[in-house]
């Protein structure tokens, strides 16, 4: 006989899971009991939301689904923001929650919450286990759904009696067979042909690289396609890092906080090739106007994204890796020289000669991030939080062979620190740098305890301006300077806070000092917090 709890652990082992993030509670205790006898490593976070973010960072860095665990009720509801963050950025995540005993469901007993109901809008799929014998099938399906097609979070809610009930034997299914779930991977041959004709006819083509390219592991394919076709490339925030920023035909990030030259090139293009980009409002402000002027080729694995925000003239549904590989093989370089000259001229014209100094006693965040990016190893992983720090990082950090991880879709403050620790555990040999503001850092700083307990050497930069900088800026520009609730006083001395945890830390109040300390931070084998004093008036762009 084998219990549901043991089956759950065996399912994770069968899926090759070696690391999970979680926080226990009464309703998930049977599972933890068996976890203690497994070789799977468990990282105890300090708050459940961060278990989901850590699993998300782990998933992004490793390419495998991340697993997070919480108990019923508040444990489960705390996960929601993390699950929603993963959903918006299409990150494969398995969230396992304990639930009250099945005969008590719906009676509002202690620590009961309808978590499958609450997570319905933010999960790719969810299960409430009603029968212990279903567990192997459910786990097999969950991992399959989370990691194939357009990836996303899957929730498995397991009542405590389903964990303790026993069945005869454990057999893990060879494969998932879900009648209503068959994602299309191969692009339609006719559509690819049409796309190639449109590319040949275009005078001013542009490639827009989105997060889907990263998720599909199609970096080499996109680079080959861009090189073989000679078409210039812009990126969305989630597509950053696919093409090294110093590539000649890379024009920068589009969108509200993007590079002006990239936006202008996109606007003037007569053919836009959207690759795994869902045309979110922050990336493209007036998609329908763009679609009126230009021919749109939209490549995405999720058919529902095509035509949702922008009319697509040539839709291609499929795995972007396969589609780009085919396009790269068949395309010829006939991009008119005038267009290339034009976009390169914009790139030059719009790039400021240097960043102006903004007062003594402060670190200039943009030039510091540029300098920092020179010091980092080529395959470093940069994790940014949300706010001004995110835009400073996105625009100024040169991702070469590494990664840029951020909460692009939901824009979740407090994402960076837990995601960075997840990424570091996935890739222990790579440098992992976390950039936060003093607002977002304080949303997750309880996780310093997790760093210490598990000795995870994440490097943290806190840009301290004693403001919620981005909202402050909005209030300045759009609300006549009526600043409310954006002054962030009362913060602790972050260096002494770090020291209280036993983490090395230092302050910098000018760029030279910041760069010197950054070198020290990168040389350290341990976690390190570098607090940069930033001028409260430093602009986002």
């Amino acid at each position, binding site marked *: 006989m084998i219990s549901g709890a043991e089956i759950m652990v065996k399912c994770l082992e069968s899926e090759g899971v070696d690391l999970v993030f979680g926080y226990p509670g009464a309703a998930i205790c049977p599972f933890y009991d068996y976890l203690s006898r497994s070789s799977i490593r468990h990282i105890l976070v300090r708050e459940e939301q961060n278990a989901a973010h850590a699993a998300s960072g782990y998933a992004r860095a490793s390419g495998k689904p991340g697993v997070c665990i919480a108990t019923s009720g508040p444990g489960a509801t705390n996960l929601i923001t993390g699950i929603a963050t993963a959903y918006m950025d299409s990150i494969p995540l398995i969230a396992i929650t304990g639930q009250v005993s099945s005969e008590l469901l719906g009676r509002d007993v202690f620590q009961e919450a309808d978590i*499958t*109901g609450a997570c*319905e*809008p933010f999960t*790719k*799929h969810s299960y*409430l286990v*009603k029968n212990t014998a279903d567990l192997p099938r459910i786990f097999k399906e969950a991992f399959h*759904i989370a990691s194939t097609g357009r990836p996303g979070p899957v929730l498995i809610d397991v009542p405590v009696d389903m964990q303790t009930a026993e069945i005869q034997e454990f057999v893990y299914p060879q494969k998932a067979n*879900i*009648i*209503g*779930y068959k994602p299309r991977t191969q692009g339609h041959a006719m559509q690819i042909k049409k796309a190639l004709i449109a590319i040949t006819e275009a005078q001013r083509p542009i490639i827009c690289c989105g997060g889907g390219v990263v998720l599909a592991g199609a970096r080499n394919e996109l680079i080959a396609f861009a090189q073989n076709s000679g078409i210039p490339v812009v990126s969305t925030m989630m597509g950053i890092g696919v093409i090294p920023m110093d590539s000649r035909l890379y024009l920068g990030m589009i969108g509200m906080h993007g590079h002006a030259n990239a936006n202008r090139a996109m606007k003037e293009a007569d053919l836009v090739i959207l690759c795994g980009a869902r045309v979110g409002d922050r990336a493209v402000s007036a998609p329908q106007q763009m679609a009126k002027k230009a021919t749109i080729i939209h490549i995405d694995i*999720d*058919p*529902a994204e095509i*035509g*949702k925000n922008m009319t697509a003239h040539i839709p291609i549904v499929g795995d972007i890796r396969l589609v780009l590989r085919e396009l790269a093989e068949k395309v010829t370089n006939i991009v008119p020289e005038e267009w290339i000259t034009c976009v390169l001229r914009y790139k030059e014209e719009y790039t400021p000669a240097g960043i102006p100094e903004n007062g003594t006693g402060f670190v200039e965040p943009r030039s510091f991030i540029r300098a920092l990016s020179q010091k980092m190893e080529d395959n470093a992983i940069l994790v940014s939080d949300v706010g001004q720090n995110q835009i400073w990082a996105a625009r100024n950090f040169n991702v070469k062979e590494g990664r840029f991880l951020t909460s692009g879709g939901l824009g979740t403050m407090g994402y960076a620190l837990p995601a960075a620790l997840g990424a570091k555990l996935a890739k222990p040999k790579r440098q992992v740098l976390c950039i936060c503001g003093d607002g977002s850092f304080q949303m997750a700083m309880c996780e310093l305890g997790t760093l210490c307990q598990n000795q995870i050497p994440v490097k943290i930069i806190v840009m301290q301006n004693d403001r919620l900088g981005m909202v402050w800026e909005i209030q300045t520009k759009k609300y006549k300077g009526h600043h409310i609730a954006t002054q962030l006083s009362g913060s602790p001395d972050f260096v002494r806070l770090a020291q209280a945890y036993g983490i090395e830390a230092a302050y910098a109040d000018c760029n030279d000092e910041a760069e010197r300390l950054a070198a020290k931070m990168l040389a350290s084998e341990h976690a390190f917090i570098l607090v940069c004093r930033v001028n409260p008036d430093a602009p986002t762009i």
Partner: protein
Amino acid sequence: MKHTLSVLVENQPGVLSKVSGLFARRGFNIDSLAVGIAEDPTISRITIVVDGDDYIVEQVEKQLNKLIPVIKVKVLEPNRFISYELSLIKVGCNTKQRAELMKIAELMHAHIVDVSTTSLTFQFTDNDERTQTLISLLKPYGIKEIVRAGTLAIEKGPSTARKQTSESM
């Protein structure tokens, strides 16, 4: 414009809430919704009438297809299907009025399914327009209660929403 969709889903708990929740959060308007077991007892069929333009219907179809328990979504072509809705209408009726009301039932092809000294209950199966006509005819007698089910629709001729099902049956 109204569009009728025939949706095949796995017959398991929670599927209806997934479908209706999707409509609510994406701002799609449901005119009517009817659920029942299909020819295969492991499958349910949901017939949905949606009010919206072509963009909305395309989005409804694509978003429904993303739900894992949804097996097949078919937007029925206008004029290529027949549809019915069921209504139960209870009308106040004294013994003198009974004959008149029975005439109306006969005229409209409605059935009288329950009778008491002070009431009559009609069962009516037809489209929305005809149901409205019957309701307006009954109004002067004092309608006590109306119970209407969602529209059911089926394609004309041999075609079905899910070819495989019909072949395997």
